[in-house]
């Protein structure tokens, strides 16, 4: 037993240094912009660049709108499927997993051809249309995460009883969904939203191929032009990812009811895909 403990200690130490050294090194690198001294000059330079804030806020807004769209689609659908058509649930679930199964570049390739200049619905020729395309693309990418957390959240609710209680008080279908089911799912939705946000704010492929002024393409541009700012941006991105994941965990744990599937949304094996 003693030996296995020493071995595991060694493994854990190696793993910890593999994880922590790049983080520390990146941070130290980001402080070296001015020769011979430590400074936050690289960070100052990042924040002084108007494109930094404009692309970051563009990406934040598109991600949030995408999360909103996919919530508005997923919540009523999940509710309806659970209440009325439990038999089609595997089909719906498989469709929501498709964005993880098919590489994102293939999906955006399909968009560009299907909604390109010579199609019936040429969304990609105008700026407004391309913005819409990007938002829809992010909504599609977020489907697996949003569906998973909403479905997990709904599992802890007795939606049939809630529905019948609301109906007996005279509520109609949309009142039930928006004033009874949705508020009960708030924590689950917010938790899924943070996970989605953490992977979409730096998304590159969709934004770049749709030619949108988003944060991902901006990062690539800075990576080509500058030396120290990329390290500062990596530190900031890591902090943002960390914040999103912590908030996601907090909300995932805030669900009402005890029979929650632990870590369902957070650590579902498929519940991630890098922004690649």
């Amino acid at each position, binding site marked *: 037993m003693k030996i296995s403990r020493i071995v595991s200690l060694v493994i854990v130490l190696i793993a910890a240094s593999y994880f922590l050294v790049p983080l520390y090194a990146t941070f130290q690198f980001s402080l070296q912009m001015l020769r011979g001294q430590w400074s936050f000059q690289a960070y100052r330079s990042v924040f002084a660049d108007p494109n930094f804030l404009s692309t970051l806020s563009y990406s934040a807004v598109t991600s949030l709108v995408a999360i909103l769209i996919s919530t508005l689609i997923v919540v009523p659908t999940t509710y309806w499927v659970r209440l009325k058509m439990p038999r089609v649930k595997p089909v719906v679930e498989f469709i929501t997993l498709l964005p993880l199964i098919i590489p994102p570049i293939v999906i955006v390739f399909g968009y560009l051809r299907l909604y390109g200049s010579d199609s019936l619905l040429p969304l990609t020729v105008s700026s407004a249309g391309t913005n819409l395309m990007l938002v829809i693309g992010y909504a599609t990418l977020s489907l697996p995460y949003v569906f998973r957390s909403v479905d997990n959240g709904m599992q802890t609710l007795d939606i049939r009883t809630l529905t019948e209680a609301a109906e007996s008080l005279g509520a109609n279908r949309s009142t039930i969904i928006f004033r009874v089911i949705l508020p009960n799912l708030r924590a689950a939705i917010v938790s899924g939203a943070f996970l989605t946000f953490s992977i979409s704010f730096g998304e590159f492929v969709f934004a770049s191929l749709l030619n949108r002024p988003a944060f991902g393409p901006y990062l690539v541009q800075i990576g080509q032009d500058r030396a120290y700012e990329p390290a500062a941006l990596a530190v900031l991105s*890591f902090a943002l990812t960390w914040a999103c994941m912590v908030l996601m965990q907090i909300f995932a744990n805030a669900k009402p009811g005890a029979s929650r599937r632990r870590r369902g949304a957070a650590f579902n094996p498929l519940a991630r895909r890098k922004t690649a």
Partner: protein
Amino acid sequence: MTVADDLLNPPSQGGSARSAPAGLPGAKAPRRANWAWLGLLPFALFAAFFLILPIVYLVTGAFQTPEGTFTFDNLIALTGPAILGSYWLSIKLSLVSALLGAAAGLLLSWALVLGGLPRWVRGAFITFSGVASNFAGIPLAFAFIATIGRLGIVTVLVRELFGFNIYGAGFNLFSFWGLALTYLYFQLPLMVLIITPALDGLKTEWREAAESLGASHAQYWRMVALPVLSPSILGCFLLLFANAFGTLATVYALTGSQFDVVPIMLFAQIRGNVLYNPNLGYALALGMILIAGLSNVLYLVLRSRAERWRA
């Protein structure tokens, strides 16, 4: 009866017994069953237009000439040296990074679950893994450039302390092994996250039963634990493989368009039709769908198989 009326009076409320006195016996039940599908319409339309039709468009395009007639030429053209080499490079890189990630992740997970370390160590690694597995793409590339790029902190430190130049010794971050090392940063935590529940599922009774029958430690692992774990391990490996296969942003930020893996080639094709044949681009996408799709679907199948042991 309008749709709104029907939504207001769903079958769940009364069923045929209560709806019969309402006046339309017999014809009512089947009609209501049909209306229920309407609730799926928003989702179905969204999925059709923005998920299924785009994929169908590419797949059918892969079997057509630019003029629209049916052909296998595009698929045959995939076996040309440039494209085949690109697929081979992608597969090699994905295999190596999945193998490294799976082996390292399994070891780390074993140490965390069965290594007898304090509980907080495990908690810290699991939380960190949740973050690290989502820390990918361009910022990850930047972090590795700052660490072991030509002027990275570790590269410089090793040179100053030991007088050893890792670039002189043949290492290059912007090469196959550099990419594999970088991918490990998100593959390892992903493996830890998905294999830890499987290791948790190894019941102490099994080990005790094996020991009481005279099995050694090695025999227990070889004949009990590994066979139980193998669908999970294989499944996780396939997930890591697909994960690496679809990776684009990390490669692009590290090597630009130099390192010709399939996603990079497809990216260049979408940008500038570098293959001079749009339909060959569709075939390239079809190949990606098949390879990534098959490994992901197999993973899902193996995962549901593995869950049987955890009942």
